[in-house]
């Protein structure tokens, strides 16, 4: 019976072995493919024990090559942070495809699914596995299987937890006495409001989080259902920042005609409300550098004070009065009918519809913005998807054949409208009465419509011999409305092979090795994630309002250089790997190497003006590579009736390289700038003056620090120290601009990431610990650069210790570039299965968790867990926008009747 215990373990690591065991009609095609792939399945056993507010947190650290940045409570940042094997495209389309029960979905939808509704995640990374999703799956696929009726009669379960969050660390600035003393010592004029306020404390609170989830299911093998209802309420540690989420879900399965027809029907609905922060960076920046002698609130005369010289900040308490609210409604439904024409031939028809509505509302009161600022916007999309497939599966003797053809069509209609208004005389209405605002300036009001469509055909064949050798091939054609007229269709083949060595006769004699499989694959896929509808057309859009014929008139113009020759960005992936198990799989090792190359890469290339009117042209020219090694290890050193210890670990080594951004377009040599700034520092004195730190440089990984070199600190002649920057090119002049005295000082994305889970069970007690880490990358500590700058004191407060460091300067340089290595203890959970003998209660478990236990790092800033994965302007730059570090303590209860 030992092997039974192993199932979850193997599930977690391989998928490939056990996927076959959980065969579903709908998954047959993929089951066979995944034999030769490296599909990673994360099943609920590996995440159900912890406190997770959403499904994305669950994914974090669980699978090699999958990164989720869970930085503070910034929901949007988290939604944009999910990466599978890094970044493969510059323009976009790096978000993995999320498929929930076969329905194309989004990371936003995934974040709304209640973790307790999830049966398993399956991560598809190689081209051969993602082939069935074509271009949509170019950046990896996260397949989510939700729980269905088991057919085992009526069941009901409740899962819930309650927790609270406390700020555990923040940046210590000078307190009021030190602020005053420092200003006096330096002979600087300062304002003394007479208080001593810690603004980090004043903008935060003890946050609370609660989750409740109720599910019931019933029916028989032939006809069953599962319905669930979940509610989440999360008040973060920052006042005015909270989230609520309500989800409902129903799945019905029915078989008919002697089991020849199977129908699956599902609906999922969720409603989420978010009170986000309007300007995260400004809030935390203001909280840090606000004069600590001021009151957190209006003074006796009703004024919110701020040093008038501190033009880049506002009183933090006022910033909390800004509103940035979102309501997100998702409804989707799907129906799948599978009919066995003959036992070996099945026809499957699948249709799905999703509706997504996003309502945004922002309000900036007149206290912060002269005349105020109000914004309302609604963005809705409808997605229709139809898929017809024919699967043939036959076994004769030692042969096993699986073949399928399918066609798919997807159509989206996305509409939006929005209004900006200003000119309000009081702040009572918030954003609820736009009519009270005097002005809706040009450009602030608009509406949009887009209807991209996608069509695909696929045929695939898998052949297995002796149940040992497996070979499969897939060819698919994807057509998109968004690409150029002559390039609508892209063809993307893939092949893969696997060898189950352990099943060979020569392996049977030994007992040492319990599993050995080798696999390899190669495939291509297309990506259009970075572009939008109508981008190939030379169309006219409003470009402004002028006086024409004596009256204000909106005029039209092309707002971009159109490229009618746009085509599919293509990614080719090669992978090879093995799975190796010893001692009845008490020790399992897996390894996979992959190399992927993106060609015809979409990028907005610089083009000469003139003859072009605009300086950018979207074209397919460049290339980029990603390669890596993913290693998984699972050990079960202890496995007894009362005691079990499991250690799982995954390590990913990853290397990205931007190979080229040069090439010919219509006889013209096109290129990107040799160095292109991507990320800048913000704040006082930093506005647009040689303050870029993060760059995109051909030949380097995406996102490298390209900085002046600081030789040390020197006396600036005014009683302070300043950064002594090196004249790297030795021309006698220190030039800090892009092409000047700068060098490549490190990369922003980790070279190695670690995810590790240790679980221990003793009788009815269980303990789980998740440890994640990242290594080999750098972080630019822009927060420290700003908060140590004595030149901005006392307008802006400085960090504790800054007066002693005595630096007056704001030049960016490698002085504040630090190693970002860290190991973080994500959570520790202690659980107890209460052994109740009751005819009604089948299982009862209580647990307690601490999330965000501790971090081991040499990084001097608040936390090294900033955005180190997503290539955007914040990548690798710690710049005053971090949430204070907080810890969550929670209690959980799980009952099954």
């Amino acid at each position, binding site marked *: 019976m030992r092997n039974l215990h192993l199932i979850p373990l193997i599930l977690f690591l391989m998928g490939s072995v056990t996927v076959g065991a959980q065969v579903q009609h709908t998954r047959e095609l993929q089951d066979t493919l995944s034999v030769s792939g490296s599909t990673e399945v994360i099943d609920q056993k590996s995440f159900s024990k912890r406190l997770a507010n959403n499904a994305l947190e669950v994914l974090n650290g669980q699978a090699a090559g999958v990164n989720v940045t869970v930085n503070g409570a910034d929901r949007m940042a988290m939604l944009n942070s999910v990466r599978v094997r890094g970044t493969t495209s510059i323009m976009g389309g790096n978000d993995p495809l999320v498929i929930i029960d076969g329905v194309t979905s989004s990371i936003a939808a995934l974040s709304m699914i209640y973790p307790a509704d999830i049966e398993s995640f399956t991560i598809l990374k190689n081209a051969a596995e993602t082939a069935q999703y074509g271009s949509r799956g170019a950046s990896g696929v996260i397949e989510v299987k939700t729980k269905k009726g088991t057919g085992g009669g009526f069941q009901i379960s409740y899962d819930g937890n309650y927790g609270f969050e406390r700020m555990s660390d923040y940046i210590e600035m000078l307190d009021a006495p030190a602020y005053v003393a420092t200003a006096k010592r330096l002979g600087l004029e300062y304002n003394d409001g007479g208080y001593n306020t810690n603004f980090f404390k004043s903008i935060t609170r003890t946050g609370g989080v609660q989750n409740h989830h109720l599910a019931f299911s019933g029916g028989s093998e032939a006809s069953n259902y599962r319905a669930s209802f979940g509610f989440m309420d999360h008040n973060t540690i920052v006042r005015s920042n909270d989230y609520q989420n309500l989800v409902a879900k129903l799945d019905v399965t029915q078989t008919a005609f002697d089991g020849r027809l199977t129908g699956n029907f599902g609906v999922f609905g969720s409603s989420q409300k978010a009170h986000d922060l309007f300007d995260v960076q400004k809030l935390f920046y203001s909280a840090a550098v606000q004069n600590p002698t001021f009151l957190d609130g209006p003074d006796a005369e009703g004024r919110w004070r701020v040093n008038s010289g501190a033009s880049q900040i506002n009183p933090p308490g006022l910033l909390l009065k800004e509103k940035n609210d979102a309501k997100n409604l998702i409804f989707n439904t799907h129906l799948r009918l599978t009919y066995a024409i003959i036992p070996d031939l099945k026809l499957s028809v699948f249709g799905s519809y999703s509706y997504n509505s996003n309502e945004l509302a922002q309000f900036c009161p007149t206290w912060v913005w002269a*005349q105020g600022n109000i914004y309302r916007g609604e963005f809705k999309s409808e997605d229709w998807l139809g898929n017809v497939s024919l699967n043939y599966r036959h076994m004769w003797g030692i042969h096993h054949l699986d073949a399928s053809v399918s066609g798919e069509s997807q159509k989206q209609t996305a509409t939006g409208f929005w209004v900006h208004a200003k000119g309000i005389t009081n702040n009572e209405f918030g954003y609820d009465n736009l009519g009270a605002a005097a002005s809706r300036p040009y450009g602030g009001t608009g509406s949009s419509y887009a209807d991209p469509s996608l069509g695909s055909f696929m045929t695939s064949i898998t052949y297995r011999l002796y149940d040992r050798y497996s070979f499969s091939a897939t060819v698919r054609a994807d057509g998109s409305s968004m690409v150029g007229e002559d390039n609508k269709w892209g063809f993307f083949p893939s092949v893969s092979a696997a060898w189950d060595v352990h099943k060979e006769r020569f392996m049977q004699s030994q007992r040492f090795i319990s599993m050995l499989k080798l696999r390899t694959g190669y495939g291509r896929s297309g990506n259009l994630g970075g572009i939008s509808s109508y981008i190939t057309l030379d169309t006219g859009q409003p470009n402004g309002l002028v006086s024409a014929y004596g009256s204000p008139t909106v005029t039209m113009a092309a707002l971009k250089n159109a490229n009618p020759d746009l085509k599919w960005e293509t990614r080719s992936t090669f992978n090879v790997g093995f799975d190796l198990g010893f001692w009845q799989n008490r020790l399992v090792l897996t390894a996979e190497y992959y190399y992927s190359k993106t060609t015809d890469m979409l990028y907005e290339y610089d083009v000469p003006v*003139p003859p072009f009117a605009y300086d950018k042209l979207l074209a397919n020219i460049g290339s980029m590579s990603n390669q890596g090694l993913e290693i998984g290890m699972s050990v079960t050193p202890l496995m007894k009736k009362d005691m079990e210890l499991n250690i799982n670990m995954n390590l990913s080594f990853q290397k990205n390289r931007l190979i080229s951004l040069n090439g010919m377009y219509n006889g013209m040599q096109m290129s990107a700038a040799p160095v292109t700034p991507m990320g800048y520092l913000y704040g006082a004195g930093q506005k647009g*003056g040689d303050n870029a730190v993060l760059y995109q440089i051909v030949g380097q990984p995406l996102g490298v620090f390209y900085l002046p070199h600081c030789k040390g600190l020197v006396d600036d002649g005014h009683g302070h120290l300043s950064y002594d920057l090196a004249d790297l090119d030795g021309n006698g002049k220190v030039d800090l*601009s892009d092409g000047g005295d700068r060098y490549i000082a490190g990369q922003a994305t980790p070279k190695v990431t670690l995810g590790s889970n240790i679980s221990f069970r003793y009788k009815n007690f269980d303990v789980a610990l998740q440890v994640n880490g990242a290594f080999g990358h750098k972080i630019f500590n822009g927060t420290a650069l700003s908060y140590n700058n004595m030149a901005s004191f006392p307008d802006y407060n400085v960090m504790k210790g800054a007066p002693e460091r005595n630096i007056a300067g*704001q030049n960016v340089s490698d002085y504040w570039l630090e190693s970002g290595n860290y190991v973080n203890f994500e959570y520790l959970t202690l659980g107890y299965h209460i052994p109740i003998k009751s005819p009604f209660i089948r299982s009862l478990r209580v647990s307690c968790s601490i999330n965000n236990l501790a971090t081991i790092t040499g990084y001097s800033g608040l936390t090294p867990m900033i955005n180190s994965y997503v290539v955007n302007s914040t990548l690798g730059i710690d710049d005053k926008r971090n949430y204070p570090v907080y810890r969550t303590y929670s209690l959980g209860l799980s009952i099954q009747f």
Partner: protein
Amino acid sequence: MKRIYYISALILMAVSFASCLDQDPKDQLTEEEMYDNATNIYVNAVATLYNYIGGSAESEGLQGTGRGVYDYNTLTTDEVIIPVRGGDWYDGGFWTNLYLHQWTENDASLYNTWTYLYKVVMLANKSLAMIDKYDYRLTEQQKLVNNAEVRAVRAMFYFYIMDMFGRVPVVTSYDTPHTEVRQSGRSEVFRFIFEELQSVLPYLPTGKSNKEGNNYGRVTAPVAYFLLAKLALNAEAYSDDNWIDGIRPDGRNIFFEVDGNRKNAWETCIYYCNKLAESGYTLESSYAANFAVNNENSSENIFTIPMDKNLYSNQFDYFFRSIHYNHGGAYGWASENGPCATLSTVKTFGYGTAQEDTRFALNFWVGKVVVDGKDVVLDNGTTLEYMPLEVKLDLTGSPYEKTAGARMAKYEVDRTAYSDGRLPNNDIVLYRYADVLLMKSEAKTRNGEDGTSELNEVRSRAGMSGRAATLENILEERLLELVWEGWRRQDLIRFGKFHQSYDLRQRISGEENGYTTVFPIPKRTLDLNKNLTQNPGYHS
């Protein structure tokens, strides 16, 4: 057999998919729809270009925004300075470098300014192509006037391009292959602009552009006259293909065909100045009227950027970025406490002397500031006092770090303005008649005639006593009258002073040959077009 049905069903689906991939945008117009009748051809081929005279983004717009044409022509001179004020206004040394003439070919703002200016040129070229393509929807006359107006706008942008960058490509067709984009000598570009303006003049509307109505904001004939006068006045510099050899052509030997007569540069300038007088422009009795909130009826303004906080998105940032935080705060706005008058400017105005020019108080805030009858106070309760004589390049640590310098007061404060005062109703004045009088005075003087009456017409309006029309007095008068209006760089270059030491600025090494009188072609532009070469003095 069944299988065949299914397969054929799939093939059928295939056919239907393929046709689904066509695009028919609903929220955008096709070219055919954009130019579907004569009215829309005017709106979308001609009027559309006027969106780019002003701007709301950095480096976009001829005036009103930062890091663009205006800053490169103003912050590089003895007229205005943005000192480093502690943690503010360092910005990587950008502003200091402008003042010290230490800009480089790598400056992003310079590249953005280049692409802004040429964008308008290329959009104008496209408009010309569209007017041609859809000319069957126009009468002959409509075609001529549409074509003329677009070319006039294009010539105006070439004027700014040539003025800043010297040797630049003249591209007149929308489909010019990139391989044929080559630089012309400065004199050739200059001649092209001049002749374009002359040849479209007969077809331009004759009305006043600064007044609301049919001609509001348009390049009408008077605007073209003004440009022709400016071009002629600067003909010496603009005809100089090698501006670092120390030899400059003499305006008396530069000739133009003007209405069938051959005239030298100065005569030409005078001719077009007279045209403006004939068009009915006169000095306003009050200097301030030109910059009032409702300045659309000024009899002096020739070309303005229309401003209306509820309609147009054109911004005017200069007031916002100049005044002290608490000064802006008194109006209920934020502000940036930046640019101020240089010491030499303050002295030229006779600040603090008995002979202080009346225009000083109209153009600058100095000393205490009273808003709504109350002194503006600093945080510590003391009264805000602007200190014009405390200006230094780096004020960090100075007791006047935040208060040194006279601040911009040129335009009447529009208390109803939006966006912290950046969206006021005062139209931004680009060209006005006082400049025409001073141009005429200067052209006469340079031509050996007496320009005193024009000079003193301007001075007497300001209540100042008459002066002799010497070149020195004229340059000084241009500062007094036109301070912070965007002409200073051009004026200093014309008078040979731009590359000398002045105010707090020491001449930089190598500058004595005058290479800084023309900006470098941005490095990025050179990288993208190997046909282009760098201007002399800037290594590339």
